[in-house]
């Protein structure tokens, strides 16, 4: 069932976090690194922003905590992982649809510098 949060546009931080978690569950540091990678280094999220957004996403059911486990690529400490929920995936899809529609409009109006034909 679609909730109000799923319909509303997402903040940039929430959008990037959902995008980072779309393929696999990640811990906080992993999310930060994935966001940097997804944005080609243009978005760098601090801990205050990341965890503030995660708190609201946990409360609204867009993400959930999974069990503590070890990251094989890092040290052997057990970490808290976060994973996207069904509601989170729907919110991400809705946001991507919005972006897609905006890009289509921009293409139709030939707003991209290198767009000569649609």
């Amino acid at each position, binding site marked *: 069932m679609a909730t109000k949060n799923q319909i509303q546009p997402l903040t940039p931080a929430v959008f990037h976090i959902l995008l980072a978690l779309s393929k696999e569950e990640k*811990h*906080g*540091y992993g999310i*930060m690194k994935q966001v940097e990678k997804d944005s080609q280094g243009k978005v760098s999220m*601090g*801990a*205050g*922003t*990341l*965890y*503030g957004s*995660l*708190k609201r996403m*946990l409360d609204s059911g867009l993400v959930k905590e999974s069990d503590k486990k070890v990251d094989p690529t*890092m*040290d052997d*400490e057990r*970490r*808290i992982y976060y994973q996207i929920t069904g509601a989170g995936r729907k919110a991400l899809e809705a946001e991507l649809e919005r972006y897609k529609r905006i890009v289509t409009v921009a293409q139709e109006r030939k707003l991209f510098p290198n767009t000569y034909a649609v």
Partner: protein
Amino acid sequence: MQSKNFFYFLYKKLISLYPKKFKEQLADSMMQTFQDLWNEKQRANKDLFNFVFWAFLETAIGIFREHFLERDIMQTTLKTIGLSALVSFLLIVPFLLMEFVNRQSYRAAGEEFPIPLFTILFICGMAFTLILAPIVQNLRERRNASEGPVSESGSMITKILANPIFSEIIVLAFALPFIGIWAMQILRIELPFIQALNQPDSDTPNFYNTVLPILGFILAMIGTLVARTSIVQSLQVQRTLFARPISLIIVLLMLMLLTWIWIGFISNQWPCFIGVQHCD
């Protein structure tokens, strides 16, 4: 290694300032992330000071944001401010009406409406209610409440004020200079700086008769609001009004001062309100 442990300890302390629910849910994960970022910067031989500075700053901003977003605190604060403004406005409405009617009937054309007078009356009334309303509200709640667990807002201010000595020192530091000068004025104690406040050319606005009193009043209001918060906190935790005696004295003195200013202005301007010509 030592510096890592030191900053790790400091960051843990910083995170402890988040609201309680936030901490329970995310503090461990935040500490883990801080450690991961530290290790990453260390491995890459990057400037650790720069990293620590931005991590602490960004987290501190996050703490303020979370406290501000805590709906109950924000709503209570807005409600108190709104109530204070409304009460204060209602108190000056009769005088505003009298001034307006007299102006229509008697006053000379071109005479300015006394905006500064009504601004001062409004500020005094609002400050009075802002100080008193939460204390009265908590006193009523204490009377009506059954014995049970005390609500814990977990706000940063609550934590800072948890130490009675610290909170009383803050209250004294902010409020005492202004209240002290006011008391000296009333008792006619003539110290050199008091004489400077009472210069003969006091009709011309200058630093001593304009900036200094306003600055002193703002600081005293901050001190009194801290005292009020401290009293409210002790009412919630210890269920007594007298746990913070200095705060209580400062609050009472400030309420007296605000009443004195308000009544003083009203009685001084009363002839004007009732329509006496050339009353100024």
